[in-house]
């Protein structure tokens, strides 16, 4: 466990979003997806920080993609999840599900 880099909750959400949108995950699209899923707004600089950090930790890889007129002719940096990232995500999910299974029902 100690070798696995720490994964914060925002980071986890963003990682899941990248996983959910193959071939189309870059700054603006991830930010939009995050806003529509969580209802919270996030700025482009903040998204960039998270994505770079995730890449540094080895959860993501990236390559340069195509440019559009909308972007003033600038290319996109497209992100993709690594097998390691996928493994960490699914481990997290398993741990959670085990815990949910043993938790008693809670009546609200």
């Amino acid at each position, binding site marked *: 466990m100690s070798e696995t880099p720490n994964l914060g909750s925002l980071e986890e959400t963003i990682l899941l979003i990248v996983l959910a949108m193959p071939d189309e995950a*870059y*700054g*603006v699209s991830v*930010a939009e997806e995050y806003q529509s899923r969580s209802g919270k707004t996030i*700025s*482009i*600089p903040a998204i*960039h*920080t998270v994505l*770079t950090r995730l890449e540094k930790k080895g959860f993501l890889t990236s390559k*340069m993609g195509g*440019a*559009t007129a*909308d*972007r*003033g002719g*600038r*290319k*996109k*940096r497209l992100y993709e999840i690594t097998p390691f990232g996928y493994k960490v995500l699914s481990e997290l999910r398993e741990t959670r599900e085990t815990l949910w299974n043993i938790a008693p029902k809670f009546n609200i």
Partner: protein
Amino acid sequence: MQQQTNISPPDWANRFLEWYCHPNLIDEIQGDLTEQFHKNSKNKGQLKARFRFIIDVIRFFRPSSLKQTQYFMNLDIIANYLKVAFRVFKKEKGYTFTNITGLALGITCSLFIYLWVQDELKYNQWSDDNELIHYVRANMPQDDGTVTWESTPYPLKAVLEEKYPSIDLVAATNWGSDIILKKGEEKIQSRGLFASPSIFEIFSIKPVKGAYEEMEKNETSIAISEKMATRYFGEDWRSQDVIGTMVTTHKGNQLTLAAIFEDIPRHSTMKFDYIIPFKARLANSPWIAHWGNYSNRTFVKINPSYNTETATANMQKAVQEHRPDVEDNAILFLQPFADRYLKNNYVNGSLAGGRIDYVRLLSVAAILILLLASINFINLSTARAAKRSKEAGVRKVMGAVRQSLRTQFIVESLLITGFAFIISSLLVYFLLPYFNFLTGKSVGVEVLTLEFVMLALGFVLTLGLLSGLYPALYMARMDPIRALKGILKGDRSNQLLRKGLVVFQFAITTIMIVGSITVYRQIQYIFEKNTGMDRENVIKAYMGDMEYSKDFQVYRNRLSNMPGIQSIATTDQDPLSVGNSTSDPSWPGKNPEFEKHFYVTGIDPNYIPTLDIKLKDGRNFDWDLATDTANYIINETCAKIMGLENPVGTDLSFWENDGKIIGVIEDFHFHSLHTPIEPLILRYDKEPWMILVKTKMGETKEAIASLEELHKEFNPARNFNFDLLDEQYNNRYKSEILVSKLTLYFTAMAIIISCLGLLGLVSFATQLKTKEIGIRKVLGASVSNILGIISKEYLIMVIISIVVACPISYVVLQDWLNGFAYQIDLSIWLFVSAGIVSVLLTLIIIGEQGIRAALRNPVESLRDE
């Protein structure tokens, strides 16, 4: 199409982004931001989109997205800059020392002044709704101008509450009183107020325990501060059930404890440790409820929809419109509570500064001293440029660009200011206790907040940059060929600037010399001034619980036979600040239109001899004449104002008491020297609270011991308090004394800094002229000839600076002196002596350097190279 081109992110933001952004990142960052911008402008409008874009560009301005070269400047180059800088420092120790010392002194002074000013500005800022809290004051128009009172009548409270929408809350308070609580046998004395319970809501003082409602209903209730609760109930009062219990005063009165409130912060002009409902005071002294009795203070909280001016406009006629019995032309106004400390000096009905003047004065002094230190720095650096021109030339020839030369010099100046800052921080740290002692403040380490440190650091860096900038630009601009040849003499503009700065420096120094001498002499004048009464060897003690007609007679008899006591008098007012006044007096021949307030004080027959006041005409009160209690003694000013040639024997009546004037005394100062002497009426009073004791010469200690001994017997419940009249007199001018001391120190600093600068310049100039001097000597010039050559230039500069300084200092100082009704004259000799001091200092500095240069053997000076 037109539409399309119009919608684009701000050009400058884009250019800024392209300037700083690392090329590997520009695609994704600019692309994402542009895309986002287009989406935003569609959904949220162009304005928001542009705003967002700019914010994001600024947020991307962080190390991770910067170009490598911009923040990762080659470490080797920086190391080289530092190495060269330290070599220069080492090589020119004198220059480095002069610079660092001058700057460190300047920064230290400014830091201290900053601390002092910050502490002054903290006063009365503690309440949550500070901008709403006001103090009601009254302007009383009189025949010879308006006087501004601090007291207002009690019925005003109800009128303000009911009739004026601008006023939300009103509290009446007295001027403070002592209470003694009994806790078993122990007696606890503390100071507080009789005040309307709304005082807590006005000042937003929260109860720690209990509630204030009880106080509205029950006038025998009390609220105490946390500090007093600790003294009365012990450290663990929070866990005790104390609210609703009875506390007992030393006279046996029972008061219900309604609440315990938060302690009032130290930086407050209003302090109290307990509050008793004002109604309790009304029950004891019903006459306070009269419109004519301007005896208490009124605090208000104004409605948030008003400000100070509009609220004042709304309520200023409250007394005129509602006083039922007589016509009262008092014009009320609201003084913000926050201004009570610094802006509290009213002249003729309008604000005329106060302590804020000293705050401003010292702030200006701080800036000037820093300026002096920076000027030294600039002067020495540019002067030195001549010497370093070869270095700069070689660097340029070797391929150094302007930028790197500039950086080199700026790094040097930053290092010097950095060192100076470190030294001055240490100085401030070690001198802080002395500073607190001097100023009577208790500034501690808590001032060293991150904010303060950042501010100071930012400031020092700016100072370093600014003072390094000119030399850096100058050196970098130099033509390398000329620099290498060593031709720099022709640079006139540079020399002119340097001369101008020296003149400026010495002008400031001269102004400060004149200023500190004047302040010092005015203070001396105050101390030595004969104020018309003898305040030496007089002790003020208090009646306490003694009754005048019973215990006090015994007390006086016993005291007069005890060691150290010469005479004993009583009065109902402090002889140094008589506060009671009235416009009531009438006499035969009084003009019915006449309007003027007369000060009134109650005395006994011993008062005049004890204070050694001179009787000009008539006689003193007589112990044995029962009728004298109806008679009056007046001062000369009073006689003049009443227009009486032979006042003795004239009828005088006020406060429903018809009597005669039996004597006239010479004027004595019963207020500070800031104000002229007012008319005063002395009456024979049998309800005094203050005892004035004249001690035998040199036996003050014995007298105090005697007083204390009797105090224990006659006032067992109270703490023994006494004041020395002359000490109190000096304390009145505390801020003047402080300013006089501070200006003295700062003047010394200014002199040292300016002289250091001049010393540096002169030593430099003589160094440059070594060969010239050598040749002159060989050709037969005498030492005095050479001295003349060296000193002429500087003497002229200093004389110009004196000429500039005199009129400026005259205007500034006359303005300050005008704050005193009794002042010294600004004589021509003052300016002459300040000028002589400046010239002498210059001569000493030049002489030392010049003689050394002039005595040098020309063989040595001509040999090098």
